[in-house]
């Protein structure tokens, strides 16, 4: 069982790097959806004796419905209706951002080994996966120019936060975690709406054209 759990965490990190390295937006959306599937498995494999089954089920099903199916579908629709399919000129090249992402993940592993968790019995890869994923998400948001690329970055960032939230599932009321899913849905939903308007106004999903406001 432990071997499989390790594999899940490592796959989440590999998908981070895949999104960072990929120029095709559709492949990025598929990778984020796959990451959603992995995240929905995590609450199940990590559940200890103290966790309520109902709670685990809500998290797993919620993550599957929202992160793996709902939002990727919404994003895929948004890209299908536009002509943009590639991130051509990111602010930072794909290779440098890949290297930076990997370096961040390495730093997260090193950092987590240095800082003992206050709750015992947690999987040693959980904190590095979370922090590494958050880092890759931030990197994507900052370096990508296409609106879809930035939304993908935000999704990766939120996935990292979700992984850390799993640490609390033993003792925190479910409300906080429901808040995460709701927030994700709401934020991207609004982002999606705005995005359709960007498309209409600029006939492309390029945030670089949103550059008339500056000092």
């Amino acid at each position: 069982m432990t071997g499989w759990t390790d594999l899940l965490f490592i796959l989440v990190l590999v998908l981070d790097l895949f999104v960072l390295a990929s120029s095709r937006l559709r492949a990025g959306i598929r990778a984020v959806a796959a990451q959603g599937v992995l995240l929905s498995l995590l609450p199940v494999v990590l559940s200890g004796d103290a966790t309520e089954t109902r709670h685990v089920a809500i998290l797993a099903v919620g993550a599957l419905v929202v992160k793996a199916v709902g939002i990727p579908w919404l994003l895929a629709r948004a890209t299908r209706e536009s002509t943009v399919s590639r991130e051509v000129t990111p602010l930072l090249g794909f290779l440098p951002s890949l290297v930076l992402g990997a370096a961040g993940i390495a730093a997260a592993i090193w950092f987590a080994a240095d800082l003992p968790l206050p709750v015992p019995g947690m999987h040693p890869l959980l904190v590095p996966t979370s922090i590494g994923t958050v880092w890759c998400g931030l990197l994507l948001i900052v370096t990508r120019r296409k609106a879809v690329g930035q939304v993908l970055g935000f999704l990766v960032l939120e996935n990292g936060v979700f992984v850390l939230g799993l640490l609390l599932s033993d003792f925190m009321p479910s409300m906080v975690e429901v808040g995460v899913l709701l927030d994700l849905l709401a934020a991207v939903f609004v982002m999606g709406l705005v995005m359709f308007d960007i498309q209409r106004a600029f006939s492309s999903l390029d945030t670089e054209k949103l550059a008339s406001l500056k000092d």
Partner: protein
Amino acid sequence: MLLLVATPLLLAALAFALPWPRHRPLVLLAGALAHAGTVAWIWGAPPAPALGGWLAVDAAGLLVLALVSALFLVCAAYAQGYLARRRDRDSRGFVGGLLVLLGAVSVVALSQHLGLLWVAIELTTLSTAPLIYFNQNERALEAAWKYLVTCSVGIALALLGTFLLALASAGPGGPRSLLLADLLAGGATLDRPWLRFAFVFLLAGYGTKLGLAPFHAWKPDAYGEAPGLLGALLSGGVTSVAFLALLRVLQVCRAAGEGPFARQALVGLGLLSIGFAAVFLVRQRDVKRMLAYSSVEHMGILVLGVGIGGAATTGAFLHLVYNGLTKGALFLTAGNIHRAFGSKQVEHLRGAARVLPVSGPVFLASFLAITGSPPFAPFFSEFAILDGAVKAGAWAPAAAYLVGLAVIFIGMGATVLRVVQGAPPEGAGAAAAAMGDTALTAGPPLLLLALVLALGLWVPGPLRAVVAAAAALVEGG
């Protein structure tokens, strides 16, 4: 107490459902009046905690609640005149969004649970993003997109920080809770390295919402493109609740013995914000963007005040109120000037005092107030923070603070005087005849300015008591 949240949300639903656009602004006014009445009632007789202690009134929350409610009431009165002039725009989303914002802001002010606090802050972002897009042009779209992306990232980081804080509370003997009372009581049992880690993310997250440098990138765009009315509510109301969120975190850090670490970071970010604002305020060509940078500056002053602590914390709470009211007057009059001249660029604005006989002078006087000229109220709060810094022996921050204020006074002054003085440009008369001062558009900012002047001359006893109690919450007096 639940009325404070339920009434605005119910009225928001009503505003969305109401088929008569002409009467929709009245729903806003009704919501504002009901809210203000409830706050006044709570001020007199503090209610018992509700929802298992998740919602309660304490001095800091009450102060923010009173400020937001007063500001919202004035803005709702202004909206009657403003929306009557903007019949070209659909007021459904605008009125509904503002009422949802009022409900969310009230939850933040009342919240004693850091998870609930986070959800409510998220809701303030979601409800204001569409409002920034009110003018529905390319610039407004750009501002709304940047606001949404930047604040969403900030909110995500704040959630990460909240999770880390929960984790820090889960050590042996820890409270295992996010209720403020539990965290404060169990301060000594919090895991300190994880608490520091949590503080960094919470500071970055709520600092983004507050618009502290270097997380302020969204602010000039959002305030620049949003209607003046929304700018007033964002810079006086939403930033105040974000500041309250940061104060809750500081309270927890202090209880755990990490106060000095947290305060050092706050002083650093405060001075950085004042510095950034000073650089961008000088020779600023856009009146509303100028006000946005002024907001960055004043958020910096607030954070600097609580960072220094002691007497400066009292000054910061006073400044919270005074800055909110003055910013309201500034944004509302800037909105009037923008309407009358059809531009907010300095090169098109001249002689505002002649075209708008009330808004022009009020804009000038509010500028004097916000930059700390006596006898207006902000002078006394800004001076209290300086005094606190000197008493605490923080000479370097005090000196940097003074230099920043002086540069900002000169930089803003050059722009404001250009706009207000002189003869209006050719053809400004025609537009101004349609968009001139009326009781409903010039009265509300004038009222705010009068309030700022009155508070400078005399601080009522109840306000003084609540400010002292709020400072004691943070300082443990």
